[in-house]
Structure formats: C-alpha cells, structure tokens
C-alpha cells in the first residue's frame, strides 16, 4: 500500500487529493494536511467583502467530505520535509504541527511515498511596514479579502464608511496592491468594482472617492503582461479595456506603484519614475504580496537543505528552467510541465506552491532600483488543472514506477476571470475575460503570444450569470456530490 500525502487543502490540493483517492481507491492511502478546517471558494470572498454573501455561503467543513471520500484528514500545518528520512530510517517523512482546537501545537511525523506540496501562499503582509502587524498577520490600517474571515471584516469596515457617507461625511476608498511585488490584481480589480456598485446602490457614490493603486506598469497587465482580445474586428489591448472600465466608473488610478509603508489613513508609495507620495484613505483594501509558507527541508543527517528544495521566495522548485536570463529570451518552454521536483521524483508542487521560472510581465524597476512588477498569477483554473495533472502522475507512478508524469504547462493552459458585481439576475454587471494561454507563447502565436479566438473580454449580464453558476458549480464539485468529476477544473 502506497501513501500519498498532500500538504494543503485549497483549490489545487483538494483537487489533487480527491482525484488521487478516486483513482487509487482503498488500495492506497491519501492523507491531506491542511491548517484550515474549512474549504473556501476564494473567488466569492469578494461578495462576502461587500455583504452580498455570508461566510457560510463560501466555506464548508472539510472533515465530513474527506471522511466520506476515505481521505485521512489532519488539521495541521506542515513544518518540514525530510525527503531522505533520518538517521534511523530511509523512509521520507514530513513533520506537522496541529492547528486543531484541543491539540494545537502538537507535532507529528507523517511518512510518505509520494508528496504533493499544495500549500498555497503565505500572505506576506509584513513585507510592507504597516500592512502587517509585525507578527505575520494583517495589520489594523487596511483590510483584505484573501480569506473568508478577512472578507467578513472588510465588509464590516466598508459599511462603516457607507454610514459615514450617508451622514454627509466625504470618504476616500483606496483599493489595489500593497507592495511592488504583488500578484492577484484580479481580486482587487473585482473588489473595487463591487465597492463602486454597492456604493451606487446605497446612494452614497457621490460622497465617496474611489481610487485604484497597483504595481502594474500599465492598466490591464494582471500579472500576465496584459493580453490582447478581439473586439469589433480589432485586436485590442487589455490596457484599453481596463482603463475604459475604470473611466466609466469615475475611478482614477495610480499605477507602477510600490506601497512602501502604511500608516493609519495613509499609504506611502514609490512610483517607477522614482517619485514618492502619500495617498490618504478612510478605507483601504490592499492585497499583500505572496511568498511560500516557509517549510524547511532537511537532509538525512539533519542538515538544512531548504535552498535545494525551495527557491529564495520559499516556493518549491519543480521542472522549470530557472536559469536567469533577460526578458527578451524568456520562452514558453521555461515553464514547468510536470511539477516534479528535479531532485526527488516522488515530490511535486502544484498551484501557488510551485516556484515560477520568472515573471510573465516585463520586469520593471524604479529609478531607485525598487522592483515594481506583478508576479505571475497561479490561482483558480490553472491551480485546479495542475493539481489534477499531478494527482494523475502520482497515481500512474504508484501503479508503474516507470510511468511518465502527466503534463500541464501554463503556456498551454487557459484561464478565465470574471469580475462580477451585484447579486440580482438582471441588476448585476460583470467583466468576463478568458486568456489562452496564460503564459504567452510567441513561437506558437507570433502576434500577441496568445490565441485571439480564445482570448476575449466583454462586459454584460452574461458574465455575471456565469460567475454565479461557477460559484455553485465549484462548491458542488468540491463537496464531491454526485457527478463531481464531470465538472471541469
């Protein structure tokens, strides 16, 4: 009997675990180690953050789902990996620390035959002074929508702002990225439109100034170097698309901005041209930068070999080409295909946990040398697809150790992003975008790097309906309800 251990129970880890168990059956063991007791459909946190949904609508307890599926669930955080075992045994293992009420802090060793790292990101609030509390958590000056609890808090704070605006007190809202190296602009993008929509619905829009602040060097970069889509017979840049959306809603923007410090009501920033400034706010939702969760790796003799397994940003090294090279020489082939660790063939990383070879957007630095560019997005659809491919590889290798791993390159994979505001069937609005592939491939698509038949964006109710359907569909799938495997990632 083989044992597959999956670290992380988010989109990628949950997908990997559930498919691994389905394909392996009861002949083999699947264990999920995740510090959270709940699964969270993160894209819908945006609606929680404006009060259109409750936390209970976007989360569900993992334990009963895993019990039904026959997956062993350990509510704990992974602390270290020992891929060669220790002095007493050659069996690889990880150490975990319980986060469960009643046993919190207790440690345990969990041996594995195959290890899948799907830990997701560490929300690195402390990378920006004042954005974090200095202890790894979100600070008190801003809010976040990265977790369901953060989103609940964001909604409470937002409605205080609405109440003040209703009372005649002019308010300023700032939304965007809280550091020069952030990713996930899409979440902030969707949140600012939801705020604008709700402020209009509440009749207080004219009393609230809303501003976008982002590390993108141009509007519509989204960490993917922007994209081009077919509109009215033209191939149009996402820059025009994004600027139009913001302009229509009277939302000015500040781009190429590295937020260097946050204080009560103030965000200090540096721009690409080297100038600095301060943006004042009454309410700010600033996305933190992401880093790996900080798992350590140890050799058989107990020596630290974290830098062998993990990149400096603490994400796990996989089969990508990590050779440093200039932007002009970046290729689609640099991106990983199997997500297998180069040194340990029984170890994989999927979702946000794998180390990308480089940015997708063009690297930028301020004249002072501060890097200000979005890091590559690896959330949502790519996360699920990679999780499934990795599970497939592990299952095949268990049955036949010489089996070739499955491939799922982000340079051959699409992604959909729907920024939807409102909840009514005919009163909502959405900007729906699909990009194929996520990583531009200028050898296959010499013009824009992408297939313009399947890279598109449009605004309207249709996208809004799709967003709602996706919410219910993915939660249904994650709960492993009948027919769940028929729903694509």
């Amino acid at each position, binding site marked *: 009997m083989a044992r597959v251990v999956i670290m992380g129970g988010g989109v990628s880890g949950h997908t990997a675990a559930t498919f691994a168990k389905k394909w392996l059956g009861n002949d083999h063991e699947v264990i999920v180690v995740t510090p959270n007791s709940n699964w969270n459909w993160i894209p819908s946190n945006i609606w929680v953050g404006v009060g259109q949904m409750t936390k209970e609508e976007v989360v569900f307890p993992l334990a009963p789902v895993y019990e039904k599926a026959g997956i062993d669930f350990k509510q704990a955080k992974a602390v270290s990996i020992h891929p060669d075992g220790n002095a007493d045994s050659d069996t690889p293992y990880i150490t975990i620390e319980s986060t469960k009420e009643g046993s919190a802090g207790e440690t345990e060793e969990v041996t594995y035959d195959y290890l899948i790292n799907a830990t997701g990101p560490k929300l690195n609030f402390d990378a920006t002074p004042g954005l974090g509390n200095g202890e790894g958590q979100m600070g008190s000056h801003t809010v976040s929508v990265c977790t369901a609890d953060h989103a609940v808090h964001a909604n409470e704070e937002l409605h205080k702002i609405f109440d003040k605006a209703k009372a005649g007190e002019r308010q300023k809202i700032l939304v965007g990225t809280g550091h020069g190296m952030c990713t996930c602009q899409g979440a902030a993008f969707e949140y600012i439109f939801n705020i604008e929509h709700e402020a209009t619905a509440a009749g207080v829009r004219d009393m609230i100034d809303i501003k976008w602040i982002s590390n993108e060097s141009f509007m519509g970069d989204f960490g993917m170097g922007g994209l081009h889509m077919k509109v009215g017979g033209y191939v149009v840049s996402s820059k*025009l698309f994004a*600027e*139009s959306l913001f*302009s*229509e809603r009277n939302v*000015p*923007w500040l781009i190429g901005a590295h937020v260097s410090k946050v204080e009560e009501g103030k965000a200090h920033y540096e721009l690409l041209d080297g100038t600095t400034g301060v943006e004042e706010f009454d309410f700010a939702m600033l996305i933190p930068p992401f880093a790996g969760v900080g798992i350590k790796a140890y050799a058989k003799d107990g020596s630290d070999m974290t830098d062998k397994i993990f990149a400096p940003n603490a994400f796990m090294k996989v089969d990508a080409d990590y050779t440093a090279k200039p932007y002009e020489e970046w290729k689609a082939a640099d991106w990983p295909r199997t997500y297998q660790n180069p040194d340990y063939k029984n170890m994989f990383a999927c979702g946000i946990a794998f180390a990308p070879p480089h940015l997708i957007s063009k690297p930028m630095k301020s004249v002072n040398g501060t890097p200000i560019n979005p890091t590559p997005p690896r959330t949502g*659809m790519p996360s699920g*697809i990679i999780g*499934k491919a990795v599970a497939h590889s592990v299952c095949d290798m268990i049955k036949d150790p010489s089996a070739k791993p499955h491939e*799922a390159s982000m340079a*051959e*994979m*699409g992604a*959909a992003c729907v920024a939807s505001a409102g909840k009514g069937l*005919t009163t909502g*609005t959405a900007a*729906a975008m*699909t990009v*194929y*592939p996520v990583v531009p491939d200028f050898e296959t698509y010499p013009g824009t790097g992408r297939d313009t*038949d*399947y890279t*598109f964006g*449009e*605004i*309207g*109710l*249709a*996208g809004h*309906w*799709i967003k709602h359907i996706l919410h219910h569909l993915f939660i249904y799938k994650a709960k492993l309800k009948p027919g769940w495997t028929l729903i*694509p*990632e």
Partner: protein
Amino acid sequence: MSHEKNFQKEQFTLTMIPGGFAKKMRTCVLFQAFRFAVINIKMLVVVSKSH
C-alpha cells in the same frame, strides 16, 4: 447624449467609453442570453484545450 462623459480629466482622455447602444446591450436579456451561450462554448473549448 446622457451617456457621454466629461473628458476634462486628463487621465480619462486616452481611453474608450461605451456609447448608449453598447450600454443597452449589456443588460439586454435576449442579447446576453446569446452571449452567455457563446462565452460558455468558448470557455469550454479553452478548458478542453487546457487539459
């Protein structure tokens, strides 16, 4: 032309702004039902190409 915006703010002069017809189509249920079908088909093709 109630849908037209004031372009005095410098930042807003370089982009496109939807006209009345484009705005109407965004909430026209019949047209959006058609677009819903088109977007879904395209997304399914992207999903199938991605696996």
